[in-house]
């Protein structure tokens, strides 16, 4: 069985961000990039599947990113993925077009399962997994907090606003990983060394036969965090009033 794990390269969301001069993107100079934390969970889940029920599973990490995306694919390889594929792409892409590229990779690789993060912590869109599933005509199991194989497919616990929902999906399917699915491992020393010998393939949107067709046009960005200036209030009532004014609590 092949498992495809899309891995997004994202700026470390905990470092302070700056915007470029045109305010159309974050200023990428001197920014630290990491493997999207939810995608690391997806990689871990694929590894767990290989280590428990499917020892023959082949895990392919794929990223749509500029050349530097190789770093994050190497993270996935060091964690234990078998091989990597980088779809080199420099320009910003919306979720729809990332899903189209991933769908083209799926056509090529024919995995039975795609596991990916429920969202990337840069755009927080939470769309690519669903778009990919629909483009492929596959089942989807979003917000997975537990995945188990059955004779005919997967039983997935989903974290919803109303509680845990347990669904069964047949394969092939797209599963999107939620926070509680697992605790991703760090790479061991031997595994890091081994990863250096694992193959990474390179391709482009053109080679995959996909011409980006934008659905979302990003006009501008604005930084929200500013220096805090503490306003002291004198009573619990006043505090509630202030919080209601800032609309962080309702009512």
């Amino acid at each position, binding site marked *: 069985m092949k498992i495809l794990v899309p891995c997004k390269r994202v700026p470390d969301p905990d470092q302070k961000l700056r915007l470029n001069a045109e305010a159309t993107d974050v200023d990428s100079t001197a920014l630290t990039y990491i493997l999207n934390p939810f995608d690391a969970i997806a990689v871990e889940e694929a590894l767990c599947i290989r280590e428990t029920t499917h020892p023959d599973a082949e895990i392919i990490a794929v990223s749509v990113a500029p050349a530097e995306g190789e770093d994050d694919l190497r993270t996935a390889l060091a964690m234990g993925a078998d091989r990597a594929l980088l779809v080199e792409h420099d320009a910003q892409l919306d979720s729809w077009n990332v899903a189209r590229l991933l769908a083209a990779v799926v056509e090529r690789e024919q995995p039975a399962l795609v596991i990916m993060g429920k969202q990337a912590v840069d755009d927080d869109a939470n769309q690519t997994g*669903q778009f990919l599933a629909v483009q492929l005509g596959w089942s989807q199991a979003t917000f997975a907090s537990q995945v188990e194989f059955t004779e005919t497919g997967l039983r997935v616990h*989903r974290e919803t606003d109303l509680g845990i929902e347990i669904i069964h999906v047949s394969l092939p399917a797209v599963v999107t990983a939620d926070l509680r699915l697992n605790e991703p491992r760090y790479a061991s020393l031997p595994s890091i060394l081994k990863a250096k010998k694992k193959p990474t393939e390179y391709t482009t949107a053109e080679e995959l036969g996909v011409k980006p067709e934008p659905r979302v046009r990003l006009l501008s960005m604005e930084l929200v965090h500013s220096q805090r200036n503490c306003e*002291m209030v004198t009573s619990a009532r006043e505090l509630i009033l202030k919080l209601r004014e800032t609309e962080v609590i309702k009512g």
Partner: protein
Amino acid sequence: MKTLVLMEHDGSALRSGNGAAIGFARELSDDVCGFLLGEDLDAMNCEAAKFAPVITVDDPALADPVADRWAQVIAEVARARGAERIVATSTTWAKDIVTRAAGLLGGAMASDVIGHEVIDGELRLRRPMFAGAVHATLTLEGLPQIITVCASAYEAPEPAATPFAIEPVAANVTELPGSTQLEEVEGKVGARPDVTEARIVVSGGRAFNTSQDFEQLVGGLADTLDAATGSSRALVDAGIVPNSLQVGQTGKVVAPELYLALGISGAVQHLAGMKNSRVIAAINQDPDAPIFEFSDFGLAGDVYEEVPRLIAELNGS
């Protein structure tokens, strides 16, 4: 612009957040229809019809909200109706099902919208990115537009004096996909949201003396706000709360909409885990406590007195 507002329900009642989606849709168009899917919808249809004309697909085949079936019906009805805009309130339901429907309808989708403006006839949408550290302004290319809005960003309209019409619509249920089955829903039994994902986090520090006090005050306030609970390291060290609640450098890193720091002095350990929260409010007995430097609102006082007042205030008494 012909707009469908998807109304989420839990099988027996509409969810309260739907109002935001209607409010948003109404600000942009007069041609707004509510849209319900499911089984045994009569009571909910009537409820929805207080706000807008309703079209409804009531069919046993849609008894469970599974993404592939529901998305297909949504797309089919949207196409049949010539909908140019489809709106829902952003929830896990919408993220699962409406996003899949958007995929069937061409993928022009913006999620978690918190604001908008129309310039030269072009709809510009504002949505948070980077856990709220950035607000992006964007436009959608092509129709229909699929938009989910944050429940807190838009007001629900007042119900109309006379209800709007309810129009049942048949869907082609014989060709619905059948590869997903809902097996079980384990409702939440008083469980609080996880501290890393909650919109509001109520966190307690050294000022709380016992587990009971913590549960009663921090937990009580959290429940009033549908919030998660967190704590500083001091309480974990003292065995008052479990390790899983710790926010800070060696614990969880959180960035909720609102972080309420109760009796937390603001050691760097703790700040590292919460300082990116959108709004921070603190209560501490020491008016010079460093936590206030990181707060938007501060109240110098004893948490044992102030927290019950907050709870009472929120409960409207």
